[in-house]
């Protein structure tokens, strides 16, 4: 299992296959961000594609290859906001309206959107860890390799991220 930094460096040498691995690794994280902002599966699918194309084009400007995850998530946030702006997305401006929308028709339930929001409000590295663990479904051993940390550190960091997520969700409920 190659780390993000290794994959980015390989991409920069012109080997596009490595970028495919990064796409698979972060597809769900990017989709989650797009979904939270756009509130719609179809538009978030298009946005995800655009985000990775943009990321490929901007890869040489990535200052820290190990931070590919947080970086691509930021691109996703910006891209989704741009799309929402262009399409005059009232969902973004009127969260109450989005609550009322049926979740059976291409929409994510408000509870799940709150959960994504909570994940995205975590410190960058914790959000990356949660995304890789649950969205990309990597086990702890893989995570340790991807993030170039020890298994023990990853376990502790995951536990802290869970705790923080619970606090955020409980605070939101109040």
């Amino acid at each position, binding site marked *: 299992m190659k780390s993000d930094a290794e994959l980015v460096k390989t991409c920069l040498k012109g080997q596009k296959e490595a970028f495919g691995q990064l*796409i698979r690794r972060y597809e769900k994280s990017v989709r989650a961000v797009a979904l939270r902002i756009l509130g719609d599966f179809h538009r978030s699918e298009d946005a995800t594609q655009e985000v990775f*194309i943009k990321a490929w084009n901007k890869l*040489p400007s990535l*200052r820290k290859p190990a931070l590919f995850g947080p970086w691509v998530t*930021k*691109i996703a946030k910006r891209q989704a906001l741009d799309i929402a702006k262009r399409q005059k997305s009232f969902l973004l401006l009127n969260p109450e309206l989005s609550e009322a929308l049926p979740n059976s028709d291409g929409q994510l339930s408000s509870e799940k959107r709150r959960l*994504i929001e909570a994940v995205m409000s975590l410190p960058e590295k914790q959000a990356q860890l949660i995304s890789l663990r649950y969205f990309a479904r990597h086990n702890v051993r893989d995570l340790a390799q991807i993030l170039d940390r020890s298994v023990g550190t990853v376990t502790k960091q995951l536990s802290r991220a869970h705790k923080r997520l619970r606090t955020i969700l409980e605070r939101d409920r109040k």
Partner: protein
Amino acid sequence: MNPDNNIEKKLEDLANNIGSDDKLVEKVMKQIDASDSPEKHEPMQKIRRIVMNRYSKLAAILAIFMGLAIWSQMGGEVIPSAYALHDSLEAYNSIKWLYVKESHPVGNQTRTSETWLQCDDYGNIIRLRFQTPYCGEPIGSLAIAGSFDSFDAWIQRYNTHLTGYGNPSEIFGFDITELDPKTLLEKLIQQEKAEQIILDFNESTPKNEPRIVTITYPQGSLSQNWKKVLYVDRATNLISKIEKFQKRNDQFILKKTHEFSGYNDQIDLSMFTFDDELPDNVKTIDMSAVEVGLEQGDMTDEEVAAEIVRQFFEAAMTNDFERAGQLYLAAPDYMVKNAFMGANILEISSIGPAYPDTDPDSKAMFCPAKAILEIGGEHYELTANWMKVNVAEETSKTWVICGSSITVKPIAGVN
């Protein structure tokens, strides 16, 4: 259920709900392949693609240019002229590191700034750090570190660290052609082709001194009262200095000087981030989700410039400093509030008309404004000789106010 298991289950459910696209990799790769030109072997930034396209377009122009420039008549003597702008342009292809010092007079003082640039294999900027000890009120000292798609700004006076996504030169309203000679040269070659500038090559300076290229603007053009002088090193073809002048009362007055040095002297990469530089108690504001500026919509440039200035004063009038800050450099509300120093705007007396900046490197608009203020029970007239308004985001044509020249004086007979 163990709380950890509960949150894990929620996250797993969420992951199942997000869905995925089995063909995403294939679709993205297809688009990447389609956008790859034969000369592109690595992922490239948009700016680099533009440069490559310009090269191909330039090939034909340069062939003609070279033909015409082989001989030029100078001082009654025919001498060979080996130099043309494209020689410098080519020289910049191998430049990876560069230091720029800018100075410009403001009243009796000189303001300075420094910029460090890192360029990629094609000589285009990939990282920059800009810093100035004073960039005017209310900000004071300012440092920006960034790439073409993200930036960090450090405003010491407010112990504030802004971080965001976007082109720092657009957000902070400075023209990158002023700092990057390569981008400038590309622009000049295009402008020369479109007959928007007049180039004068002076090869008659002593051999140990730089050759001088003077750029003027045709009579009747917006920038007709401006002049630029480029000092080009004879050995390397790299630019060592650029002076920019504006004509006032038939005399050219020096407005700005950029000195370029440190070519290919490697810069420590830590210069391009604020890691370990910011105090522990710094206030960090993520600007990526902040609504910035005003979209142009159907308004003309003049109209949008006047409208954003009007909205800024209206917001300040109702103490909506958050909105005022969004319109003024996306500044946090407490900075804008501090800039007004407890003054209440009682009335907006006039706004506009807006007019374009004549500076050849600027796409900004200027808009004057007047307002009546109350400070401590006394009335004052605020005169904004100009509020500078610039496009901060090209896609949606979003404008922000990026500077102002304001004077405040008591209103005679009222206090």
